[in-house]
């Protein structure tokens, strides 16, 4: 079975329908376990005090904000190269989820920044690139809404997505490119030495799994909604033509 079979809207609907409740339950469980574990059963950090509990929201949402855009990039490339409508609709469906994740990352970062840095906002490389990513999300959604012809909208938003990918990558690596910012380095790394302490690390991993699963479920639900919307528009235009 090839992945391209899911490019057929009917196959996509048939395959994803039964998956959604299962993934939804797994997402809810992972989020509940990760956040309850992190909030109630982890100690305060010796420097940051209880604000360290914000990590269980801030890091997963920031991770998803970047990865949602990268998923949109892959889907946009599939649209541009192979012209599969489901991939264009999946990219469109992911944008509101990505923008919400970016908003959560910005809001929790600002709230965390006030007691730790003494300010809600600084024009730090990572914060600024995240703000630009947020604006790209808004622009992407506005472009989809502004163009009536769906294929033209998919073409133009795909190009915008390619351009915005620079900022998605920059958001991830800004701390490494420029060292003058307030923001710390990555909390998670393949190098165990650089990771946060185990007592924070494991609930953080569960919370991240919850955010990833939530993203997948919501992308599936919203892509199915977009496919239905496309079908409605096709039926209406057929009715008018008859």
């Amino acid at each position, binding site marked *: 079975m090839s992945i391209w079979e899911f490019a057929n809207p009917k196959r996509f609907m048939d395959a994803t329908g039964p998956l959604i409740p299962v993934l939804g339950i797994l997402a809810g469980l992972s989020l509940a376990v990760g956040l309850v574990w992190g909030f109630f059963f982890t100690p305060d950090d010796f420097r940051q005090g209880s604000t360290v509990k914000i990590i269980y*929201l*801030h890091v997963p949402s920031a991770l998803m904000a970047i990865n949602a855009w990268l998923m949109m990039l892959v889907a946009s490339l599939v649209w541009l190269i192979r012209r599969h409508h489901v991939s264009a609709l999946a990219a469109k469906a992911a944008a509101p989820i990505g923008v919400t994740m970016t908003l959560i990352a910005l*809001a929790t970062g600002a709230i965390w920044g006030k007691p730790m840095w003494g300010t809600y906002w600084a024009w730090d490389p990572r914060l600024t690139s995240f703000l630009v990513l947020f604006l790209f999300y808004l622009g992407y959604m506005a472009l989809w809404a502004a163009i009536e012809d769906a294929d033209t909208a998919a073409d133009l938003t795909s190009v915008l997505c390619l351009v915005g990918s620079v900022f998605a990558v920059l958001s991830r690596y800004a701390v490494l490119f420029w060292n003058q910012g307030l923001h710390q380095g990555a909390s998670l790394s393949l190098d165990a030495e650089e990771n946060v302490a185990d007592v924070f690390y494991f609930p953080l991993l569960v919370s991240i799994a919850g955010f990833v699963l939530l993203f997948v479920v*919501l992308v599936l639900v*919203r892509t199915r909604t977009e496919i239905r919307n496309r079908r*409605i528009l096709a*039926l209406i235009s057929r009715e008018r033509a*008859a």
Partner: protein
Amino acid sequence: MIGAQKQEQFVPDLGKYAFDVLAAYGVSAVFLLALVGHSAWRSARMKRRLSETEARATKNRGQRD
């Protein structure tokens, strides 16, 4: 007494950062619930609209035939 102490330990003492931590969780909960709620509401609305449109299209086709 021991039970009371255990209960106190269960609810974490957030100290002077209580407002910041609770605000972060509150804001995130509002955004996440809004996102999930909007996705579910739009999905249900589109399902209903599609079945109405399909029913109308079938009826119109029947009348033409």
